[in-house]
């Protein structure tokens, strides 16, 4: 168990959940007269803004806490929706086979063939940028990868004796999928989802960089780094702290996912 990763994730989670009590300021409160206040340990910094303030004079610590909330919420919602969607579609395709399989996998092929960042841009220009739209786009573009993996595993599980036995024993399709297939594909789903958390956070930050991420005033880590890049040379703290937060959380998730992968050792996921 990588304890370091677990600790980082716990700390980030606690910060996000307790943000309203921990944050010294309203994260959206602008103060144009105190823009780019440096962190307290630098010249010109003060304990009023422990980590300094951003280009509109908002308290960076408060935004970091609240931004983590949104970033991690987006990540968790996207990843769990993808997990459900991908598992369901993958199991159905793998187990039912035939035209259901063919149809579902062709849809998955299309999703995988689309250059996801570019398509996300087009979709945002249709729907407009909003928290919900960003989540919907990410989910829509990401389920297919997992569905492929789950389908592959389901195909293997289907051949096993205990599944055949259950079928002979009169267990219905739903029963077999729930009792026999699902527990066996869960390992892969958990590993893929853990690794997915980081990907989603980074994806949201790339959207913010291109100007179509979760819109203000809602703070997200990705959006904060993107906003701070204009002043990255002079007021480096504006983009550094959210950047470090992203790196820490993504790294923790990736290490955790790697560890889980080795623990579960689902061979199908290696390639």
């Amino acid at each position, binding site marked *: 168990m990588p304890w370091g990763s677990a600790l980082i994730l716990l700390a980030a989670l606690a910060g996000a959940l307790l943000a309203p009590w921990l944050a010294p300021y309203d994260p*959206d*409160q*602008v103060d*144009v*007269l105190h*823009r780019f206040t440096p962190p307290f340990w630098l010249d010109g910094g003060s304990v009023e803004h422990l980590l300094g303030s951003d*280009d*509109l004079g908002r308290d960076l610590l408060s935004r970091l806490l609240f931004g983590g909330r949104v970033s991690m919420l987006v990540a968790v919602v996207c990843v769990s929706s993808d997990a459900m969607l991908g598992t369901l579609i993958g199991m159905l395709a793998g187990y039912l086979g035939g035209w259901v399989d063919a149809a579902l996998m062709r849809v998955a092929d299309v999703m995988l063939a689309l250059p996801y960042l570019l398509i996300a841009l087009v979709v*945002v*220009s249709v729907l*407009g*940028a*909003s928290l919900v739209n960003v989540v919907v786009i990410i989910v829509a573009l990401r389920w297919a990868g997992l569905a492929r993996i789950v389908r592959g595993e389901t195909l293997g599980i289907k051949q096993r004796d205990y599944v055949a036995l259950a079928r002979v024993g009169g267990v219905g399709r739903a029963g077999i999928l729930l009792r026999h297939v699902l527990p066996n594909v869960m390992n892969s789903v958990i590993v893929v989802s853990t690794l997915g958390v980081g990907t989603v956070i980074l994806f949201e930050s790339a959207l913010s960089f291109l*100007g*179509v991420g979760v*819109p*203000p*005033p809602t703070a997200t880590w990705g959006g904060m780094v993107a*906003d701070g*890049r*204009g*002043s*990255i*040379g*002079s007021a480096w703290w504006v983009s550094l702290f959210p950047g470090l937060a992203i790196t820490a959380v993504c790294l923790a998730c990736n290490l955790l996912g790697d560890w889980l992968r080795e623990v579960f050792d689902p061979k199908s996921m290696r390639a």
Partner: protein
Amino acid sequence: MRRILMTGAALAALAAPPAMAQSLVFAINNLGAETWWPQDISQNKYITSNLGDPLIRLAAPYSLEPALATGWSMSEDGLSYSFPLRAGVVFHDGSPLTPDDVMFTFAPANVEKFVGFSAIKGGNLVSIEAQGSTVVMHLKSPVPALMDNYISRASIWPKAYVERFGIEGFNKRPVGAGPFRFVEHVKGQHVKLAAWERYYGDQPQVKEITFRVIPEAATRIAMLRTGEADITYNEIGATTGELKKYAMRGQPYGQPAQAALIFNSLLNPERSPGRFDDIRVRQALTLAVDRKVIADAVYFGAATPAALPVVGTRMPFYDTKFAPLPHDVARAKKLLADAGYPQGMQFDFVAATTNKDLAVLLVSFWQRVGIKANLNLLDPVSLSRAWWQRTLQGDQVMLVGGLANGMASAVYINSKSQVAMYASPATDTLFAQGMAIIDPAKQITWLHDTLLPAMNDLYPIAPVLEYQEGVLGLGPKVKSWDRFDLHSFGLQWLVPK
């Protein structure tokens, strides 16, 4: 030994001709369509216009200067314009400028192909003819601001050269009569121009200018710091402050522009009464915002509070009695209460992603007077579409950008134009009245005596800030640059160290 060397160097310096900076690099956000076809000027006017000069130059708002023509005159009815051509002008291929070239550029069939230029398209430019070395243009109906909006935007190009090489050939090796000639163009990367030794006007002081396309603003600033770029072009915004931090000069450049609030429910002349019909509500939205603080802190003085639409406060004929509304929270609250919203109000607020900072600041100032604005950011094209094509339903407030250069901007109050910011019989009458005045001097009187007071009484839209379209970042190799052509950069006035 050292002494001798130094003397040698000093001697060499004495003997050298007045130094001309070899080469400067200009980092810009995009190169546009990367075609050199002058008809496409609405897209990459900054690059093409440096190669080719117009007949008359727009040096500043309401400040026209002779360029390829030594002047111009207009007939009484405003339908004929004469341009006596300058003698001795040579295109970059060595051929002299003749009336044929001007007649070719403005041949009615060619004008139809211009991007934009709607006022002289569709048969309004009837014919163009030469009378000796003077070119005469005939219109069907008069076009106010013809010089500012059209003539000064169109570079003259050489008929013989174009006919010989075709559009393809011209695009590969464009030729004009401007201060710089074409050297090299690597698509998506850079364009190299060199000073034209036989330029008729002020001689360029830089030997070579390389435009490099750098889409990301933070990268452009980094290049200015490393010396890889000597000049950057930035749209007005946060990077203005960044320039100051590195002791780089920020030189405002471009047409006078405004950020303004427009109201979706007021864009159609046939409208049902709504909340924003009340001038007090519109004024309250302005009074609630400390625009001075925003202008100073966020734009570092490159912007100032705006007073009235259409006519910017820096116009030569502006009347200072129409000062920008102050920051007055109490008055804003009172106006809202008087208008029937003592508890404040709530509305959807639509802005472009590129104007994010300003939008967020406005929302936060409004919050303090009890206004809750739900911010909805659109990409710039979606926003223009919502505004120009009226695709929104409801009484949203939009934050948009527009020019504020007098008669040429009057189109914003004409309900028939797609960029109408406010549609009402009153403003339509004003617009028609103004357009009927052909004589430029009388136009100015009308703007001053009639339009300004009318705008003040109607307060049809709520202008927020005014500024010039962009800011040039000047690096250490640039001594000064303070004279421009509003439709090209005016590179001949760029003074290197």
